């Protein structure tokens, strides 16, 4: 099979009987890059653990992340579960693309790689929505009352109804007590936070690091997903153009596949430590 690419002898390339690890140079370097990236993410998640352990108390994932697009609140973790599922499925389609590549099945590679790109784009979009919702915050935000910081669930000024949720499994406060807490908080201008930014957030009013770490770590991961989608797209174009037919193997698909699985791998940990635990 003749290609325009220059073929080299294994002994000439490695000065011996070939790669010591029985793995091509490109794949080996991709693994070393992923190792360094894994150390970066490991350090970031360790920093997250540091602040969490230092503060002792932390917002509960199922209470912060309980919204669904078009449906509103009250669906704990359902949207992020969907995002996780999409990412796992796109990892599966990637590994199927790699497998098709080993059989030199160009059509199969195109099909599975296209689905991977679509899944990745879906995930990035979902994360954008998640961020928008996180920054925007709940309907009324959280108020500092004489009982501490509470999220205002319902408010009707005419009927003097205010319902507070003090989180961490405490009882919902409504009725006369709820209204008293609300009117006192507003009259004294004790404190009101809605949404999340770098300096304060309504989910953990005393812990700005909660939002900072969320933005940094999910943002850094989201950037990896975005780059992954772009790289997959480039490789897909090459596959369609027939670059790898000429080369005689689809190892480039395998290399970007490694990167893509790594992105999924990081999300498995982010998902556990930000949403579940």
């Amino acid at each position, binding site marked *: 099979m003749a290609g325009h690419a220059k073929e080299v002898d294994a002994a000439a390339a490695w000065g011996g009987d*070939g*790669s010591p*690890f029985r793995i091509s140079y490109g794949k080996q370097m991709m693994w070393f890059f992923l190792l360094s990236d894994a*150390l970066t993410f*490991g350090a970031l998640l360790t920093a997250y653990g540091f602040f969490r352990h230092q503060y002792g108390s932390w917002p509960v994932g199922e209470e912060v992340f309980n919204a669904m697009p078009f449906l509103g609140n009250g669906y704990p973790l359902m949207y992020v579960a969907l995002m996780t599922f999409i990412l796992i499925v796109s990892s599966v389609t990637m590994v199927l693309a790699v497998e098709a590549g080993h059989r030199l099945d160009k059509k199969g590679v195109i099909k599975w790689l296209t689905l991977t790109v679509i899944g990745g784009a879906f995930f990035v979009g979902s994360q954008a929505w998640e961020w928008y919702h996180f920054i925007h915050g709940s309907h009324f935000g959280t108020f500092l009352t004489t009982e501490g910081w509470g999220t205002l669930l319902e408010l009707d000024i005419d009927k003097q109804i205010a319902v507070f949720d003090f989180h961490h499994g405490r009882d919902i406060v409504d009725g006369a007590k709820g209204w008293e807490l609300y009117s006192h908080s507003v009259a004294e201008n004790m404190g009101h936070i809605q949404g999340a930014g770098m300096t304060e957030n309504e989910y953990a009013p005393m812990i700005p690091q909660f939002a900072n770490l969320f933005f940094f770590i999910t943002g850094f991961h989201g950037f990896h997903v975005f780059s992954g989608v772009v790289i997959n797209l480039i490789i897909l174009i090459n596959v369609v153009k027939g670059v790898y037919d000429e*080369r005689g193997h689809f190892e480039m698909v395998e290399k970007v596949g490694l990167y893509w*699985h790594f992105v999924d791998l990081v999300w498995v940990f982010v998902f556990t430590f930000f*949403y579940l635990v």
Partner: protein
Amino acid sequence: MERDDLIRDNEYSLSANHDAAHGQEIRKTIWFVTILLTVITIVEVLTGAFVKQYSGGEVNGYWPFIKWSFIVLTLVKAGYIVLKFMHLGDETKSFKYILLVPYFIFIAYLIFILVTESSYWNTILFP
């Protein structure tokens, strides 16, 4: 520039290509791992959504058990992704060790530092 991914008739490059029968075997493994990862994720999400971490402002007594189950399940998922999807299980033993040993030494050290130092700050800030 010489590129070793263009080497032909080499056991770790071109001949990594396989026939249809072997492909079927690999796809079977892929679907098994897919189902396993999906089931673990569903179990985790349902547990996370419906088991309460706190009641009346206090952490529930059973929560540490659930927390550690989440962490163990996460490591199981990670292991399957790395060994099966990324095929690290099929690489040579020396390559596996060269990646995993330094990583785990470094992360274990980081976690040790984290727990020691943040416990100290916790006692200073919230005595």
